[in-house]
């Protein structure tokens, strides 16, 4: 392995152009590291804020609801906001990015774990993300229909709303479970291909 041949000469003879000076590169490194931390903090904050807003809006609607069924439905949606936020904070975080100072084999395993975790999360989105608020909305709609028909009003606006949010939920389901999960599976396969071109699977 120690022979210094043409390949070594070509390799070591490469001039890579003027790299950034140490101090400049340090400034860039610190800025990039800080930007990464800011992104994570912002994402966590957005998730919490989203959950709180949904919970507040539907708690208010529950308070305004005309009957127990609608109130129960709205409260369920409000609780779902809190639940989803909790779930995302508790389980939704991807396993921490693998420390880059691991050897290649460990790093690959950690990356694969990260992908598997994300794929599992997306595949289960219907249970922890979609079902609770959807059931709540259905109950609330049923309660509102009941209240409107009792007053002799048309139920059509509620039925149209049901159709619209059902379509939205179905789209979100497809987006997560089919589209996003497939994209991640492709990334995982690319990683495997890069790492184990002869095996294809770890």
């Amino acid at each position, binding site marked *: 392995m120690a022979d210094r041949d043409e390949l070594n000469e070509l390799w070591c003879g490469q001039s890579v152009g003027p790299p950034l000076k140490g*101090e400049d590169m340090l400034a860039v490194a610190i800025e990039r590291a800080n930007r990464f931390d800011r992104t994570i903090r912002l994402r966590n904050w957005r998730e919490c804020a989203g959950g709180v807003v949904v919970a507040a809006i539907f708690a208010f609607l529950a308070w305004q609801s005309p009957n127990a069924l609608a109130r129960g439905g709205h409260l369920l949606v409000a609780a779902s906001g809190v639940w989803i936020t909790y779930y995302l904070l508790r389980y939704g975080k991807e396993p921490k990015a693998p420390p880059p100072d691991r050897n290649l084999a460990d790093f690959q395993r950690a990356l694969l774990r990260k992908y598997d975790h994300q794929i599992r999360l997306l595949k289960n989105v219907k249970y922890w993300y979609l079902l609770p608020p959807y059931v709540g909305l259905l109950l609330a709609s049923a309660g509102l229909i009941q209240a409107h028909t009792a007053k002799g009003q048309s139920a059509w606006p509620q039925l149209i709303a049901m159709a619209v949010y059902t379509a939205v939920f179905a789209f979100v389901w497809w987006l997560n479970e089919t589209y996003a999960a497939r994209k991640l599976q492709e990334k995982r396969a690319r990683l495997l291909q890069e790492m184990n071109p002869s095996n294809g699977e770890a």
Partner: protein
Amino acid sequence: MVAEIAGQEQHGASLRAAFLRIYEQYAPALGRLAGAYAATREDREDLLQEIAAALWRALPDYRAEASERTWLYRIAHNVAITATMKQRRRAQQEVAPETPPDPPSAGAGAEQSLLAEEKRRILFAAIRSLPAVDRQITVLHLEGLSGAEIEAVTGIAEGAVATRLTRIRAKLRQAIRTQEAGDGR
């Protein structure tokens, strides 16, 4: 409290000093490594900055269990692999032209220099086309790391590294010969 802040400042200053020392020492090697992963100058610079950021983040946790060199190469290669996967995805959408690492100087021996530069371009392109594991082994070998050091960086046993290297080196030489034969026609 004042002592705590002073201690933090001292710690920060020593991290900065360590970063600068490591970077100054390994900048040329990291530049070559970037060339083995990214074809365009823009991507290489971006990759170098990513590696520098990862180095800065990892520095406080460095415990000297591994040698500084193997520790740095682990970080650099792992960052490069993940960054390359992103760049490859981007490259599938927009085909970026390859930028030569550096223009050869003109003057006496310019022809020799051009020839060497062309071979170098072929070598780097061939290395970039290798699977990640082989690419990593190749770069480490060409940077002069021993079999044991390569094992420490990759986690692949020294014997397996030697076997792979024999195959890879033959492949790289073949790539250069094929290109030379093509140009000579």
